[in-house]
């Protein structure tokens, strides 16, 4: 075995070896010791639904006390040929039905299973296994994919919005497949990642964008490579008990996704689903008309000139003449004076660019799958196509996906299987967010409305630093293709009745190709004699895991134990080539460029882990779970490479106690508690602990090197301690269920880019400094209001999270400077000049003078509001009558503030003159003594419009959204049977149908940047679209 150590990847080989040993042993034993089968009985049975009397396929039937297991076929039939003598006890289990133990003495036999109305027996996916809901000790939310699929989004994560307490999902732009802000139980980190860990069929998937070519803000979301149609269920693991088994990556919670699989002994089922729809921006910005713009600018000039004269006379100097002539005056009025006359206000035209930039987008989705299985094999094969046009032009999204899941029993002891997602996502992109060059929305929104699209000679007019909108709409040429393979291969061995060994090999491979070309009509093209960029990025995350799972029941004691190891590696390499100076617009490949530059880079990290979990349950009454994980990461210095993450959870099903047994009203009552520690290392540089010099600091095309970061050999894991107490209560035979959780998360050793004095030559060092807390409440209420022919059920969830930066050595300014992180306050606190009021006498803005020195300057920037909501949640109503079903889903966010940076630009008080559009709120400016308004007098002097940022642009971002309404109809069975169909459902659905908010912009659910330190910052992002679609789901 020593040779392994000298090989390139000793670790992998060692794991492989381990696998072979463990696999080989039982096989060998089986081969040697199994005697010729002794047949003592043959049992033939049928399993039916006790209520409907329909046969039940896929029911797992086992003989108590031995390992022999079979499943029912498509007709609910099963057969046992066994050495056991009748009578013996059978144990039957099937998802959605109560487990049944029955003594069978004759063959054939019919067994009836009762459907469970209670969720208590639902199987819940947890880390490295499953549990029934009643046995959970941790805080876990599950979302069935069918519940949320009606919302036509490119990314499944968006469909989770408002569906689980403690989960905050906020879309950042209205572009399909773009980045999102997702938090489970608050923000725990400043500079490490705050994204949850995503595990799809046991594969750790990358959720960080590989995008290199900027779209000026939000990056493409790699999670949109996964088709929502392939997903069976989503489980959100929240507290330490649920997440600690994932150790170092679990501090932000874990989202476990299970994809669809076939069932044993079921006839092939063909499912077709399709929808088509349209998307439209429900509201755009309200800009002033051309004449209004002109009036405002003239007023600005008049006021400024008056101020100049007043100031000069006070100082005894000659007044500045800058504002003497109004810009909007007759063309013959002082034609040579500066500024040049632009014509009278009433002669100005209004050019609507916004409605030109937006469109009604077409949405299409088609999915087909075939699934089924016999007693040894299950399969699921699916393919899908999703096409979405964004409401903002030139942003298109197209995903083709292919899925294969197979499970195969080799014999009664060994099972192998595989899960595969293969997708290609193609996008045409546009520059959307910040920055004027090439920015479609910027050009449409910020170009003053009085300025024409075209010059008199027909050439495109370019104004105010922006590209011409027409040019951009016709010439933007940016696209990206993501090729993704998420694949898992596992082998499972039932070594004894109680002991299962599993090995799992996974890969998440993503190749990401990007291209942009700016031709000679665009500003970027002009600046560079055309500009072309091509980028190829590859990311491979491989994982190998082994687990040994032990379960044993003796009397009232149920024991479970799990041990395992995990090895993971990630390699990212990127190659980028850029060309400028092209012969002409026909040449778009970089090979044609006269000047080319290129770069290639590679980065990698490894992670090695060991974990263990112990479960104990006494009589279905007392539950205890202990788990621990040890993670070693190559990102940290040798001193702190390993982190240890333990947790403990307890649950007490009070209902099982004698004193509650007879209380009929209460159908279940459970108290849960857990505590534990999880870690975080995501989002930091792969070599963050080293003192490094980097290349690329070239001069005259000679290579140059400069220091890139300071060493921090003590760098270590960020760790989050979390305590959780939960109560699950079911009343009136489970018609009303309540689930509440209280938690306290405390993150210490924050991975923080601690700002350093620039005089050291470094702006920051990544260090463990600072502490952050998140305390919160979650409540989920489900009720079955009507349960007859007319069914009505309601689900309501609400969560509150209080975030606080407990310790921070120095305030840190966020990527967008209106937000700061300061000890004692929450993340995403806005720091601005606080405008108290506009003086009705003078029309001047009065700001809070925080240091009471009579001067308003940067010392008077104070915290005003916060972008984190006080509450958020959702309300779902499901109604059905006969074949009809109706879903109405609201989600809400309350108490968050948004910095409306668009309006900061659009309400410049005339200071930006011809360089920015203005919005209608600017018309509310103070004009005469006595005016009560918050929009100060227009002038170039004083501080009315020169301070930035100010509280004028901080707005309430609370909203209530009618997120989805879906009306469906299941065609009558006998009607469709003629067409050899099993079920047909047709539906019509609408999303984002209604929005209540006080926010002035189109939508408060917006964010300019994918930077983790920025939230609630509205700048140049298109709003969430309103969609309508019709669709059908058909199974054969």
């Amino acid at each position, binding site marked *: *075995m020593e040779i392994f150590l000298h090989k390139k990847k000793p670790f992998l080989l060692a794991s492989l070896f381990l696998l072979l040993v463990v696999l080989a042993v039982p096989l060998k034993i089986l081969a040697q010791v199994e005697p010729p089968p002794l047949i003592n009985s043959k049992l033939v049975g049928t399993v039916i639904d006790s209520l409907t009397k329909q046969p039940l396929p896929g029911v797992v039937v086992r003989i108590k006390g031995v390992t022999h297991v079979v499943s029912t076929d498509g007709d609910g039939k099963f057969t046992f040929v066994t050495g056991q003598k009748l009578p013996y006890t059978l144990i039957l289990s099937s998802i959605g039905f109560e487990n049944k133990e029955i003594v069978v003495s004759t063959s054939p036999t019919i067994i009836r299973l009762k459907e469970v109305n209670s969720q208590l027996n639902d199987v819940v996916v947890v880390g490295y296994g499953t549990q029934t809901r009643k046995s959970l000790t941790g805080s876990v939310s599950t979302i069935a994919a069918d519940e949320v699929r009606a919302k036509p989004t490119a990314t499944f994560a968006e469909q989770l919005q408002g569906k689980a307490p403690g989960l905050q999902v906020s879309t950042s732009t209205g572009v399909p497949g773009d980045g999102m802000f997702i938090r489970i139980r608050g923000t725990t980190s400043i500079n490490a990642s705050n994204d949850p860990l995503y595990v799809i069929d046991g594969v750790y998937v990358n959720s960080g964008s590989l995008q290199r070519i900027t779209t000026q803000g939000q990056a493409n979301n790699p999670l949109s490579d996964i088709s929502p149609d392939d997903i069976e269920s989503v489980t959100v693991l929240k507290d330490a008990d649920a997440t600690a088994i994932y150790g170092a990556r679990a501090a932000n919670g874990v989202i476990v996704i299970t994809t669809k699989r076939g069932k044993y002994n079921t006839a092939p089922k063909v499912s077709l689903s399709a929808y088509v729809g349209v998307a439209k921006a429900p509201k755009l910005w309200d800009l002033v008309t051309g004449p209004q713009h002109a009036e405002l600018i003239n007023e600005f000039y008049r006021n400024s000139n008056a101020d100049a004269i007043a100031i000069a006379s006070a100082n005894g100097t000659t007044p500045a003449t800058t504002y003497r002539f109004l810009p909007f005056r007759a063309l013959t009025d002082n034609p040579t004076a500066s500024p040049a006359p632009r014509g009278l206000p009433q002669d100005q035209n209004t050019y609507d660019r916004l409605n030109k930039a937006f469109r009604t987008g077409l949405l299409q989705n088609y999915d087909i799958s075939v699934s089924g299985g016999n007693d040894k094999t299950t399969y699921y094969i699916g393919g899908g196509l999703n096409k979405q046009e964004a409401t903002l032009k030139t942003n298109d999204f197209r995903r083709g996906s292919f899925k294969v899941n197979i499970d195969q029993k080799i014999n009664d002891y060994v099972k192998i299987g595989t899960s595969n997602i293969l997708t290609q996502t193609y996008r045409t992109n546009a520059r959307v967010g910040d920055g004027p060059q090439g920015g479609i929305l910027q050009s449409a929104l910020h170009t003053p409305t009085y300025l024409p699209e075209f010059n008199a000679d027909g050439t495109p007019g370019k104004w105010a630093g922006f590209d011409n909108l027409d040019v951009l709409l016709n010439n933007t040429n940016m696209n990206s293709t993501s090729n993704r393979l998420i694949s898992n291969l596992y082998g499972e061995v039932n070594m004894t009745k109680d002991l299962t060994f599993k090995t799992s090999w996974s890969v998440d491979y993503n190749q990401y190709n990007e291209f942009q070309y700016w031709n000679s009509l665009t500003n970027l093209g002009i600046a560079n004699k055309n500009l072309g960029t091509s980028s190829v990025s590859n990311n491979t995350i491989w994982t190998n895991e082994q687990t040994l799972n032990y379960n044993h029941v003796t009397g009232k004691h149920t024991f479970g134990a799990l041990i395992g190891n995990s090895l993971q590696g990630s390699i990212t390499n990127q190659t980028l080539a850029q060309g400028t100076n092209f012969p002409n617009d026909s040449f778009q490949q970089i090979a044609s460029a006269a000047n080319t530059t290129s770069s290639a880079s*590679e980065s990698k990290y490894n992670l090695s882990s060991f974990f263990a979990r112990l479960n104990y349950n006494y009589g279905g009454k007392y539950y205890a779970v202990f788990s621990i994980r040890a993670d070693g990461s190559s990102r940290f210095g040798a001193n702190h490479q390993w982190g240890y993450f333990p947790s403990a959870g307890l649950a007490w099903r009070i209902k099982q106690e004698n004193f509650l047994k007879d209380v009929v009203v209460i159908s279940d009552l459970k108290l849960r508690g857990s505590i534990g520690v999880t870690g975080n290392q995501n989002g930091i540089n792969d070599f963050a602990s080293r003192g490094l*010099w980097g290349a690329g600091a070239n001069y005259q095309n000679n290579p140059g090197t400069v*220091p890139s970061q300071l060493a921090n050999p003590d760098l270590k894991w960020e760790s989050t301690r979390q305590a959780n107490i939960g109560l699950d209560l079911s009343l009136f035979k489970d018609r009303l269920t309540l689930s509440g959780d209280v938690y306290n998360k405390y993150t210490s050793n924050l991975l923080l880019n601690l700002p350093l004095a620039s005089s*050291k030559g470094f702006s920051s060092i990544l260090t463990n400094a600072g502490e952050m807390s998140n305390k919160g409440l979650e409540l989920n209420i489900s009720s079955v209001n009507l349960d007859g022919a007319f069914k009505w059920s309601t689900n309501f969830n609400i969560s509150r999270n209080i975030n606080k930066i407990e310790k921070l050595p120095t305030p840190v300014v966020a990527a967008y400077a209106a937000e700061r992180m300061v000890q004692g306050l929450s993340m995403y606190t806005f720091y601005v000049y606080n405008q108290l009021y506009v003086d009705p006498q003078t029309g001047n803005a009065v700001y809070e003078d925080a240091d009471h020195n009579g001067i308003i300057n940067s010392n008077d*920037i104070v915290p005003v509001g916060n972008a984190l909501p006080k509450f958020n949640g959702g309300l779902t109503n499901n109604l059905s009558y006969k074949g009809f079903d109706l879903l109405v889903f609201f989600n809400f966010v309350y108490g968050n503030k948004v910095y409306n940076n668009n309006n900061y*630009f659009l309400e410049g008080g005339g200071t930006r003159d011809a360089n920015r559009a203005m919005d209608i709120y600017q018309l509310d400016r103070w004009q005469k003594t006595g005016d009560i308004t918050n929009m100060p007098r227009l002038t170039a002097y004083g501080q009315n419009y020169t301070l930035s940022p100010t509280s004028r642009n901080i707005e309430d971002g609370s909203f209530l959204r009618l997120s989805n309404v879906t009306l469906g109809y299941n065609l009558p069975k006998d009607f469709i049977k003629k067409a050899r169909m099993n079920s047909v459902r047709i539906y019509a659905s609408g999303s984002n149908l209604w929005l209540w908010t006080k926010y002035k912009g189109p939508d408060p659910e917006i964010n300019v940047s994918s930077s983790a330190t920025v939230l609630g910052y509205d700048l140049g992002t298109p709003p969430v679209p309103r969609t309508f679609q019709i669709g059908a789901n058909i199974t054969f």
Partner: protein
Amino acid sequence: MKKVTYIFAVILLFTSCKKFLEVQPQLQVDQDQAIINAGTAATAANGLFNLLAANSYYGSNFPALSYLSAGDIQWSGSQSDPNEITKHLTSATNGYVQSAWTAIYKTISQANYIIDKVPTVSDPLLTTTLKNQYLGEAYFVRALAYFDLARGWGGVQLILKPTNTASDNSDIPRSSLADTYAQVLKDLNAAETLVPATVSRNRVTLKTVQALKARFYLYQKNWALAEQFATSVINDNANYSLVAPYSAFFANNAVTTNESVFELAYTTSNTNGHSNWWLPPALGGRREWSPNDALVALLNNPAIGGNRNTLIAQTAPPGNLWYGKLYYRNPLGTDPAYVIRIAELYLIRSEARAQQNNLIGANSAQTDLNAVRSRAGLGTTTAATLSEILLALEKERQVEFPFEADRWFNLVRTDRAQTVLALPDKHLYLFPIPYNETLVDRQLAGANRNPGY
């Protein structure tokens, strides 16, 4: 047996873990491998010029602080940072001030590494000549950086040792303005003995050092030495001369003309931001700022601007917007940054001679001023008295260097800024200590800040 094998396998996993978790970077090298031989010393020296030329320093940010402050440039864009500067409302949170400050200290830090490490390298390929060149360049660049800090922010913290750990160079108090300038001189003297005597306009030679010394002594009002060092560069007229017409030093993609004593070079892979800020959208820029009406009038006045009107141009109708076109090259951002031009040395010497009462006649203040005027296609100056000549020099600089880091610092140096620009208070002579620095460094906080901000 099974258990034993399993345990053994687990042990095996543990033992090979250490290696598994050792991953080496391929894009970067460890700090202690940064300067160890001739090759790495050369790349570190290139890195030094890259930092000096960085966008936040001479690439555009630092010159912008000067020309935006000088009263001749108007804000015509949308960012609040340049707006504040043009209106002399610069706040401590101003992003331009912060970036320039950071970039200057980064440059100093790189020079400190070179000064610290290069002498210790023993590599036969690193000859004494090369060693001296790198060291001399580092001393010169550090001198220039402290000079820029001194004229922008006053006396500053003198960081002279490299930062190897986060705790290095902590809690260093601000030096006085005199001590800061003393350090500049010390570094210039060190550089003078080390740099080569060849001609290079993109790197540092003896003439580069002498030119900065001339400027240094002018700021120090040491007129004799200012004249002496200016003369030693001007006299090398085979290599340094006023190119005519004025536009010859920048138009038609000219680089490293005889006009330039020190200019920083840019390539398509290492660009600067000037043209983006100056050029109108039709030419691929954003015209964030532009020459104001007064400057346009001056440059277009044949008796004042002369052929320097080539610095500006107007967009097509109906816009008719004036823009600066000193930085215009395509691909965008490849324009050189002009750090010291020979014209400045003439004007330095003119002022130094005037102050030494050498006003008119041969080799006088007038001669030098006329040299610059004549190149611009203007007649001789009528200024003859000291005050007339000083005023004439002030006005000449206004139109000779409107888009370079010149006029503002000279108005402050001569204490004329308040009068000429109608500033409400002299605290505006210094830029604010960046707000972020005041948060993390108590030596820059509270009373250690620049007053008035």
